[in-house]
């Protein structure tokens, strides 16, 4: 066939094809118009299932469809955050979680996730705030308390650590390692190298993180890196009593007695840590009455603190005050607890119910009733028929009732 003869045939086929395509499109469009709209909630649930099944891309796509159908709900935001986390988009995930209000059923969990993300970003201050918000919403949550134990433990914020362990023990049975750590952190210090690594990241992520600066300064001091310690403290004013104590310790280690004495003399008169230091200084120079005064301040603030108990007892003894006797007796009980904690550190002792009971007795003896309960409970978990532990619990309950009933 010639090109001239083929042309009309070809044109006819082209027209048919075009018409056919338009017909298909029209029919498709009609089908789409007539098809029912997916239920966004069902679609969201589907997206959630896909997420659980680890089909993250599908989940993301379906969630996108949901959000084209309606405004995102708190559930949607939460799911979006989870998906973003799988992609490592932590900043966006936090932003998404921020859309979940506290009073939503997912509010508490959203705060927990925020906190965990902030931990990963080394923003411990924000993490702490998020976990505390979660607990304000639901005080029975366990996870945020565990995370707070980590933060406070890392920063050696012993009063907060103690309070958190106590609260944790009330909502969840504690493992041996946790009860042991609770007792241990009365006086332990961590490996400075690890503290430095962690705290430097925290300060880089959040230069306003006061506790990170304090922790870093202390770690540097322990490593004899005094200039670095002072640099870490630099933004914190002397009016910050914890920073002041840190500076005093650095001055002492540097051998700068005069700077140490000058710093000790300043600062609030009723700060616990300053009072302890002042008391120790007074004892060192043989000033018994001043030592009594300072340790009394400390003891009034923290009657259960070993250093305050022993310090006041020794100070009273130096001035010949018979009030020293019960305090030294109390101090002896603190030391006994310390000895038992050392024994509890040994792996092969971890299954010793007698040791657990002894630790319970020792904690109870110095009024640390929540820790005592935790030890007795461990013994009972091991053996529900442990009558001595049961009796220990009963004694603690009774002692607490008496303590609560006593006039303040």
């Amino acid at each position, binding site marked *: 066939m010639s090109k001239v003869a083929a042309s009309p045939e070809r044109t006819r086929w082209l027209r048919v094809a075009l018409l056919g395509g338009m017909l298909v499109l029209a029919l498709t469009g009609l089908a789409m118009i007539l098809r029912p709209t997916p239920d966004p909630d069902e679609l969201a649930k589907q997206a959630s299932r896909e997420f659980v099944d680890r089909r993250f891309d599908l989940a993301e796509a379906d969630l996108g469809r949901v959000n084209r159908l309606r405004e995102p709900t708190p559930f949607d935001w939460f799911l979006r955050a*989870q998906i973003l986390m*799988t992609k490592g988009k932590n900043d966006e995930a936090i932003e998404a979680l921020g859309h979940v209000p506290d009073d939503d059923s997912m509010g508490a969990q959203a705060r927990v996730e925020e906190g965990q993300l902030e931990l990963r970003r080394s923003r411990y201050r924000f993490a702490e705030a998020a976990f505390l918000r979660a607990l304000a919403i639901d005080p029975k949550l366990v*996870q945020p308390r565990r995370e707070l134990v980590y933060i406070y433990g890392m920063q050696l914020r012993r009063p907060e650590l103690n309070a958190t362990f106590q609260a944790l023990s009330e909502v969840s049975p504690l493992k041996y390692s946790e009860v042991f750590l609770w007792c241990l952190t009365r006086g332990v210090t961590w490996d400075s*190298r690890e503290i430095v690594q962690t705290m430097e990241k925290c300060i880089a992520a959040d230069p306003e993180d006061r506790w990170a600066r304090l922790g870093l300064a202390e770690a540097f001091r322990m490593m004899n890196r005094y200039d670095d310690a002072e640099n870490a403290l630099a933004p914190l004013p002397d009016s910050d009593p914890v920073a002041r104590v840190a500076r005093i310790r650095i001055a002492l280690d540097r051998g700068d007695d005069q700077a140490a004495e000058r710093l000790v003399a300043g600062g609030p008169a009723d700060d616990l840590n300053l009072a302890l230091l002042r008391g*120790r200084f007074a004892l060192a120079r043989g000033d018994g009455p001043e030592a009594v005064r300072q340790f009394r301040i400390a003891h009034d603030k923290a009657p259960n603190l*070993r250093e305050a108990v022993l310090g006041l007892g020794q100070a009273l003894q130096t001035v010949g005050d018979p009030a020293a006797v019960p305090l030294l007796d109390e*101090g*002896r009980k603190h030391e006994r607890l*310390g000895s038992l904690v050392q024994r509890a*550190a040994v792996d092969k002792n971890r299954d010793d119910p007698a040791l657990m009971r002894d630790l319970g007795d020792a904690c109870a003896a110095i009024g640390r009733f929540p820790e005592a309960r935790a030890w007795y409970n461990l013994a009972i978990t091991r053996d529900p028929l442990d009558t001595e532990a049961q009796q220990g619990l009963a004694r603690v309950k009774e002692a607490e009732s008496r303590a609560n009933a006593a006039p303040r």
Partner: protein
Amino acid sequence: MRRPNRVSLIWAAPWLLALPTVGCSPPKTGTTAVPSSTSSTESPAKRDSGTKPERKSSLIDDRQAGQSEVAPKAAPQDPSPFRFAEVAQKSGIDFRQFSGMTAEKHFPTANGSGVALFDYDNDGKLDVYFATATLIPVGTARKGPNRLYKNLGDGTFRDVTESSGLGFEGFCHGIVVGDVDNDGDQDVFLCNYGPNRLYLNNGDGTFKDVSREAKVDRDGWSSGGAFLDMDDDGDLDLYVANYGIWKFPEDSLMFCGDREKNVRFYCSPRSVKTTKHYLYRNNGDGTFTDVYDSFLVDVAGAKIPGRSDGHGFAAVTADLDNDGKVDIYVTNDMNPSFLYLNKGGGVFEDATETSGAAYDDKGQAQSGMGVDAEDVDGDGDLDIIVSNFAFEYNTLHLNLGKGAFTDVTPMYGLAADTTPYVGWGLSLSDFDNDGWPDCFVANGHVDDNRKLAGQNTEYEEPSLLHHNVPTANGKGRRFKLATRDVGPYFDSKHVARGAAFGDIDNDGDVDIVVNHKDGAAALLRNDTPSDNRWVQIQLVGTKSNRDAIGARVDLEVDGRTIYRQRKGGCSVLSANDPRLTIGVGHAAEVKKLTVRWPSGAVTIREHVPTNQAVRIVEGE
């Protein structure tokens, strides 16, 4: 004191438990590994979002992590007043200790051995006796023996081990010296891994092993000890600090160290079961009775058994509460240091938990190794210093009176300098005779292979010397590092263990001998130039124990009173010169010298010229 502080220990649990790894033994971190944040219920997202992986440690046993690289204090020193020349080889002392350390790192081989300074032949010159160890299991090799060097008086020594009968072969840690039979010569007790030994001095330069007859040869693991007259009957009794129970091969099977790199470290002291110590009461007839379970009372006066919760290292016996009776302070590794206050009649009160000297200021047990007690602040009572592991400072416990002490280490300038090192033998001796006790500590790590595990921890460490100086405001005292220009020994590093202190050349100043682990011993002759003066006192008891342990000496000089005591024990694994070499500054005479004997008798001498040795006999 081995350690994997400051505090020490690491447990890599989900929560991370770490314990302060302080302790004298092998690897010590000094502190604990930090807790890690691992949620027990992680969200799925967290599992997939690049969650920081849980830190898995390849380190087995606590205290295995390297010490956080504590830097020695960088502040420049003023020139030191002290000068010490290391003269061992030149003097003819060619002793090298053998520790028994192998790649298996059997625990007892970490602690090394001590050295004793005493006049074995009563010729007026201090002789030197070194202890050494052997391979474990004991008996599989002949190593050593312990060696005795006679002081020839001209700066040289001669090995007289063979003729003396003191050539003990075995696993010897500590040496305790005293006149147990009050016959005027010094006897020797050896603290061993294995049965202990008692050698009675025959008075002719030879010794006889009377261990069995004396009933002091119990098989165990003793570190050191101290003599004292515990029951005021005029003879010397013996406190022996036992480290614990460690048996080969069962206790050698535990791997401690870096598993991935297959680098073995010494295990933590916590891996060793503690045991009772001994308190041998001298029966006066050549035999001893262990009264360890019947000498203690509690604060209410009720009898209690002897404590079994201390890895015992060293002891000092002295009047620590100024009541005229000699007390006992025992250093323990990662346990509280014991304080036993003498109540008379052979009864001691366990004052450990109220002493303030059992733990550090945070209530953590430290790795107590060496000990000394001396009046560092001139207030008339003995303060206590304890050497500890790295990342724990050597602790200075200031005596507050009535058996109470407080940790003043940072305030006295000792904290930062001593923290990086593992301290052993130490002394609060007045090395420049200015009337104020200075401080020497011999250092050395326990593990020689940390670098194989990638840790920046050295085996050899420098020894430290601190000068006792007034504070800037002049109202108190403190210590200042003073090793600059002292001598080559202080510019180099060693693996030191026991150290003994005394006037070896009878020139009125205190010299030092150091027993290095698997190394040549050092004899540090004190050549400190000074116009300060001294008095050297040899006390001879007659009604009191002949060694006069427990006697107190007060010297009134130039407007102040210097207080000293004839102590038992001290340092670690070692025994010091029994004479008191007392610096008195520029005083040309001691206006009044008062000796209060353990018997209660008092001797007074007046206008005693300084720069001389005096012998004071009770009752004369």
